[in-house]
């Protein structure tokens, strides 16, 4: 019964969020909130997608930038070759990201812990090198892209991208929420705690890991795809920038990985701080501030923001710890 009520609240919240975003694009004339908001939404999608594998399954993926870059360049290649519309670009990026995720999932057969993380970094470097030598998408020199005309009801492309990214956030969050509450989530949790024990008790670990990798990969690549149109420019060093990996990981950890709301809170907090610092302090200091925030959270709140909120929430809900 509560589960059902929770669902209603969640979907109502998602609908309100999307309506708010849509009406914001219609009312607000100043474009800056959309530029900055797009980046924050993008990080929410990335952090939520990352935590499906990194949080639920405990496989720390350092290759977020690989998936992100693959998303960007799938969109670029498709747009250049066929002039495909944004929706197709995103869908294609999701498919390619899913395939790549399958490959990464197979890696987990042989590698765990730190070795898996290192392998994902290597993956990012390999793909970046490949793109650097792929002249069709500009190679190392990068490529400038001309946006097609914007579609109604939006009056600027950035507003449209802002809405599209909001939609991707809702999709990512609802998938993360579904996984968390389903057999898959429980299975992933079991394998995170002890993979061998989970395997022995009949949890299909390989299948679950593959599913987690594929979904996480597809979502990250999909979130990356609109970046090509947002920047109207793509170059390998920006698209495969390690900061995407670090940010996604930091946001998920700061928010907490046990619940889908964790990465969302982390991304909102860290993403908006980043945007704010970029236009206020704006020097080496902003990198320092983010570093200090991370250290404080790791020391003071090892389970993230939700770790701080949870005990109180549980007491209120039923008095059980």
């Amino acid at each position: 019964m509560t589960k059902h009520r929770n669902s209603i609240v969640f979907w109502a919240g998602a609908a309100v969020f999307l309506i708010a975003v849509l009406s914001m694009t219609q009312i607000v004339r100043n474009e800056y909130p959309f530029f900055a908001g797009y980046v924050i939404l993008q990080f929410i999608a990335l952090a939520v997608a990352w935590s499906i594998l990194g949080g639920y399954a405990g496989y720390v993926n350092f290759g977020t930038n690989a998936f992100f870059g693959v998303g960007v360049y799938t969109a670029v290649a498709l747009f250049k070759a066929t002039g495909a519309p944004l929706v197709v670009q995103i869908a294609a990026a999701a498919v390619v990201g899913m395939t790549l995720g399958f490959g990464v999932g197979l890696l987990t057969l042989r590698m765990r812990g730190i070795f898996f993380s290192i392998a994902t970094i290597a993956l990012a470097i390999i793909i970046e090198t490949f793109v650097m030598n792929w002249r069709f998408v500009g190679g190392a020199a990068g490529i400038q892209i001309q946006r097609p005309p914007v579609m109604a009801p939006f009056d600027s492309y950035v507003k449209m991208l802002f809405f599209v990214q909001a939609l991707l956030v809702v999709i990512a969050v609802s998938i993360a929420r579904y996984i968390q509450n389903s057999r898959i989530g429980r299975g992933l949790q079991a394998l995170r705690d002890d993979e061998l024990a989970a395997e022995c008790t009949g949890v299909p670990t390989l299948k679950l890991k593959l599913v987690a990798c594929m979904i996480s990969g597809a979502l990250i690549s999909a979130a990356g795809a609109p970046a090509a149109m947002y920047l109207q420019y793509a170059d390998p060093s920006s698209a495969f920038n390690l900061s995407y990996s670090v940010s996604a990981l930091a946001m998920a950890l700061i928010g907490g990985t046990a619940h889908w709301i964790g990465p969302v809170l982390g991304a909102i907090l860290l993403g908006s701080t980043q945007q704010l610092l970029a236009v206020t302090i704006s020097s080496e200091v902003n990198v320092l501030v983010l570093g200090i925030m991370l250290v404080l959270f790791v020391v003071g709140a090892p389970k993230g923001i939700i770790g701080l909120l949870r005990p109180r929430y549980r007491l209120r809900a039923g008095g059980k710890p």
Partner: protein
Amino acid sequence: MKRRTFLGGAMAVAVLGQGSSALAQQPPIKIGMSMPQTGGLAGGGKASLLGIEIWRDDINAKGGLLGRKVELVVYDDKSSASETPAIYAKLVDVDKVDLLFAPYATVPTAPIMPFVKQRGLLLMGNFSFQVNSKVGHDMWFNNAPWGPADSWAASFLDLAQKAGGKNMALLTADQEFAQNLALTARDVAKKRNLPVVFDQVYPPNTVEFSSIIRALKAAKPDIVYVASYPPDSAGILRAVNEIGIGDDVKIFGGGMVGLQFAAVMSNLGSLLNGVVNYNTWLPEKSMYFDGTKEFFDKYTKRAVEAKVDPLGYYLAPFGYAMGQMIEAAVNSTKSLDQKGIAKYLRENEHKTIVGPIAFSADGERKETATLQAQFRGVKDKDIEQFRSPGKQVILFPEKLKTGDLISPFEAARK
């Protein structure tokens, strides 16, 4: 005693405040930009910003623009393309700046080109390479001396062919700027029927070049065109020093990034001798224009405090020149109307501390003023030597020439 000091200070402030009250009456003219202050481009970005700040201080000391103080609004773009769209939207929509300068280098600039075109805004370019060629914005003016896209390779190959070069080897880093140079070099070579006997692209993080230099030497080229980045420029020159490059090579260099910066130059020292490389400004006789010396006097003092390149030849004077062009345009048109300023910039030649600047329709220089200069008589571990003329003799352009090419390369290295 303390109180008296305080009172004295307060009075001084009050007096000074009155003096500048004419400036303070009107809101300042805001010039907005992002600048790489962290990340890979930060070294250049900070030096460029210092050049612009010196211009701001000079113009404010003269009474500002149109009687209004000039204020810079600067944000850090972390050397990344993904940061600049939001920053420029903030500058235009929230900070409501009057004029825009571009960040240093191509990558952070590329994403804002469509934005300024769509909004019809003037953008003063800052050392990016051919970012407007596909966008075609008619209110873009690049301060860099590059000129037409192929002139870079053409000037180097001119020198090479005059010295008797008949074939070329290309060694280029797999990065944005180097690849752009390589592309034009291949084009120019093709047009001149100059065979390319060696064409090697190496990954950006390469440190060990001995095998590449051996292979290059085996191809026996006359001309060696190198487009590299700071760490690899050093690696390449070290390998050349160890292995040698063969007596056939008439000329070596062309597009090596890094050999313009004091730290790299003093680190490499005598290994630089003989290399012919691009540059933008050098302390040679022909390079001093109205105000150039005064600018470098100020720069040299402030560079220590700002912890930027102590020489600052490469970027800083062009940052200042960017301000000078705006100053001339605003004073002549007597307004901040961006269309009017753009029209003025397009139609006139501008006197700056880096020489006269005229623009072609694409907003790049009409004629290239990119120098090709040869290192001569450089000693080890001495930054100060680069302040005196004769260490980098200008071979191109003809107007600014201060010497002739010494060839072959092995002879010039001695």
